[in-house]
């Protein structure tokens, strides 16, 4: 029976192929999951970078939680560093869960790093939804931070940056794909949150760095970061400080919305009209405020909010940085061939008009 013999061969080959495991097959326990990547300037050699990978050591026992190992290598490029690190560990590196990329501020502030930034997007196994941040004072120290609340390594960073955990307007999380877009797109400049080491085993993220296409040029303060966050319409839960004469009060915001228009009247100076609406209720006051007086306090808050926002806009303008994407908006709505050249001329001379609308719903107390 020729037919059945053929079939036997087929089955034999098929079952033989099962014994071989192909090059793609790599058991999960034979992999080192890289959870975070840190990039520092090299200290001990003439190479440019010190690349550190934070990897999870998995254990079978339930009592001991997952531990981590941080392996570093000095190299001129990411590829070189990873290849060097591979020689130091026994398992295959797996970047599929590398969700945090930390560039130390010294590296971020110096130019010529596009090679390593693009390495992340070129690698197919690094997810484009990884978060990129600036680290202070060193990336390795941030990788070493393990808050007591953390059960899984780097989980606290993931929660903070992903806003799954704490919701605050002082963190501006930036994804890898977004950073790439900000690096390429004309009229939209890079913006990265800054992670600082706080005390022994904590971190703090409450400022952001703004840069041009090659390096970080401006560090925003905590309140400035909040204003940028408002203007990016990212987070509504926040608090707004207001001072009216001797009275200080804080508005717990429930909704913050901003919208802007770039207006270029003929023959007149072009300006940006920024509209902000803020809704909230009083959270803390230094003096008793009754419901009847609220409109007065709204007015003061409006004035102060628009002044603060204007100050941030002017600061960004003076540094000739555009993290909010005004230029991109201008290019999208002006279909000239030389729109970019024109915008480069317009932006430094722009005026900003901020119209704030604050609604305080109640004092938070029963009168």
């Amino acid at each position, binding site marked *: 029976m020729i037919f059945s013999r053929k079939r036997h061969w087929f089955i034999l080959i098929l079952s033989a192929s099962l014994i071989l*495991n192909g090059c*793609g097959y790599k058991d999960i326990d034979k992999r080192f999951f890289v959870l975070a990547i840190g990039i520092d300037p090299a200290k001990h050699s003439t190479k440019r970078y010190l690349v550190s990978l934070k990897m999870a050591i*998995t254990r079978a026992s339930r009592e001991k939680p997952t531990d981590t190992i941080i392996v570093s290598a000095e190299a001129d490029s990411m590829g070189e560093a990873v290849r060097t690190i591979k020689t130091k560990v026994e398992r295959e590196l797996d970047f599929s*869960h590398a969700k945090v990329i930390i560039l130390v501020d010294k590296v971020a502030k110096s130019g010529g790093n596009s090679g390593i930034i693009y390495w992340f997007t070129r690698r197919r196994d690094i997810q484009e939804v990884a978060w990129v941040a600036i680290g202070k004072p060193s990336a390795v120290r941030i990788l070493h931070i393990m808050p007591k609340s953390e059960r*899984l390594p780097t989980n606290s960073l993931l929660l903070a940056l992903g806003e799954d955990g704490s919701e605050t307007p002082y963190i501006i999380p930036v994804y890898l794909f977004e950073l790439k877009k900000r690096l390429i797109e004309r009229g939209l400049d890079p913006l990265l949150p800054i992670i600082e080491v706080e005390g022994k085993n904590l971190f703090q993220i409450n400022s952001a760095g703004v840069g041009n296409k090659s390096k970080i040029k401006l560090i925003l303060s905590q309140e400035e970061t909040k204003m940028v966050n408002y203007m990016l319409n990212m987070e509504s839960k926040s608090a707004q400080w207001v001072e009216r004469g001797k009275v200080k009060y804080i508005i717990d915001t429930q909704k913050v919305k901003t919208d802007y228009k770039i207006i270029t009247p003929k023959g007149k100076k072009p300006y940006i009209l920024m509209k902000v609406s803020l809704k909230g209720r009083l959270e803390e006051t230094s003096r008793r405020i009754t419901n009847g007086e609220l409109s007065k306090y709204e007015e003061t808050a409006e004035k102060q909010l628009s002044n603060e926002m204007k100050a941030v806009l002017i600061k960004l303008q003076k540094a000739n940085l555009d993290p909010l994407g005004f230029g991109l908006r201008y290019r999208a709505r002006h279909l000239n061939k030389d729109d970019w050249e024109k915008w480069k001329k317009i932006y430094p001379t722009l005026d900003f008009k901020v119209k704030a609308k604050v609604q305080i719903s109640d004092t938070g107390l029963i009168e």
Partner: protein
Amino acid sequence: MPTMKVESIKKNILNKIGQPSSDLVAREVHTKEKYMEILYINTISDESIIHDKLLTPFFEIEDQQDFLTFLQSHPKILPFKDEQKAIEDLLKGVVIIFYQNFIFTFDSKANLAKVTSGTVVETTVQGPQSGFTESLHTNVGLVRERYPVPELTIESLSIGSISKTDVMLLYDSRFADPDTVKKMIDFLKTVHIQMFQSGEQLLDSITKHNRSFFPTMLVTERPDRSAVNLSTGKLIILVNGSPFAVIAPSVMKDFMSSMEDIYQTYWVGRFLQLLRFVGFNISVVLPGMYVALTAYNPEVFRVQLALSIAGSRTAVPYPAFVEVLLMLFMMELLTEASIRLPKAIGPTATTVGGLILGQAATEAGLVSNIMVIIVSFVAITNFVVPINTFSFTIRVLKYLIWALGTIFGLVGVVLGFLMINAYMVKLDSFGVPYLTLLQSKPKN
């Protein structure tokens, strides 16, 4: 001698029931003085009652007039009302008596509930709990009882060159497709089996015809399922000596439906059905998916899960696909063993196998914790499928997906799933497309 009127009524009734039904009895009874005709269906009438209460007096009472008086005065014998009523009664187990110029109906219903046993394989929470018996005669009666329709056609055949087993083919001539009936009869005639014991053998011989992976005939022990299927134009095969009926043509949705879907409220029924389809897919795909995801694409998991799987696998010496195969094999043995074991020892097997072996295997580092969860998940979802023959198919299919997942990763799993789907699209059961619901019957 009966008048023309009685004669025409008799003819009408016979015409109406006139389907070739092998259990319809029309008999003339003679003595020297008297002549009587009786008409009944022997599967639902109790013939011993007919004998004791009707035939014995008929031969004992010599006088014609006396017997008429007997008939008129018997409490269980009622005078004839009209043809429609008579036919309905006949289908419920009543004897119709033609005597002289009179027509009587005699209630001789057999109490079939007494002989039936409860369902063992296809149990439901609600609804009828009785199953078929081992007697062909009673089984036909059980179907008749639930499906009292004159159009119910019963054809009698015998299969098996040695066993000469009686087989009855039941269908509703109004709904059944004549092509299908012809196909089925042709098929039954071509079956060559020496010893024909049970309807499941047909399943085997039809799958040998086209080497089908999936069963194309449904084996059931429930008379209510048979009756419901009759009303949708299906054919029922009853085999002497087997408490199972074979329903054909049967397609995927029949195998995935339980009688309980009808007995539950609408949304509950739909939910249960959805649950079964989800369970079916999980059972087929999960082992292959586990291998593909852990060994090729761990990025699909969340970090937490990836780390905990990696952690639980650290002590396991074999690659994931061997681990899966090992556990699946153990589970199959366990399932197989608990079927064979007597009922009294059955629970011991599950305890020893499931709890102790599973726990020990994990602690010995032979398999990972997660693997135990997956295998039990596969086993449980497998049993969600209400018809056994179909769930056995799934038991085999998951190895195909497992193999493809091992060789080609996630792509292999998708490919295997597609292959199964394509195969089902191609498959038909006596001319009815296997994925009826989604597919419609091809027109020729």
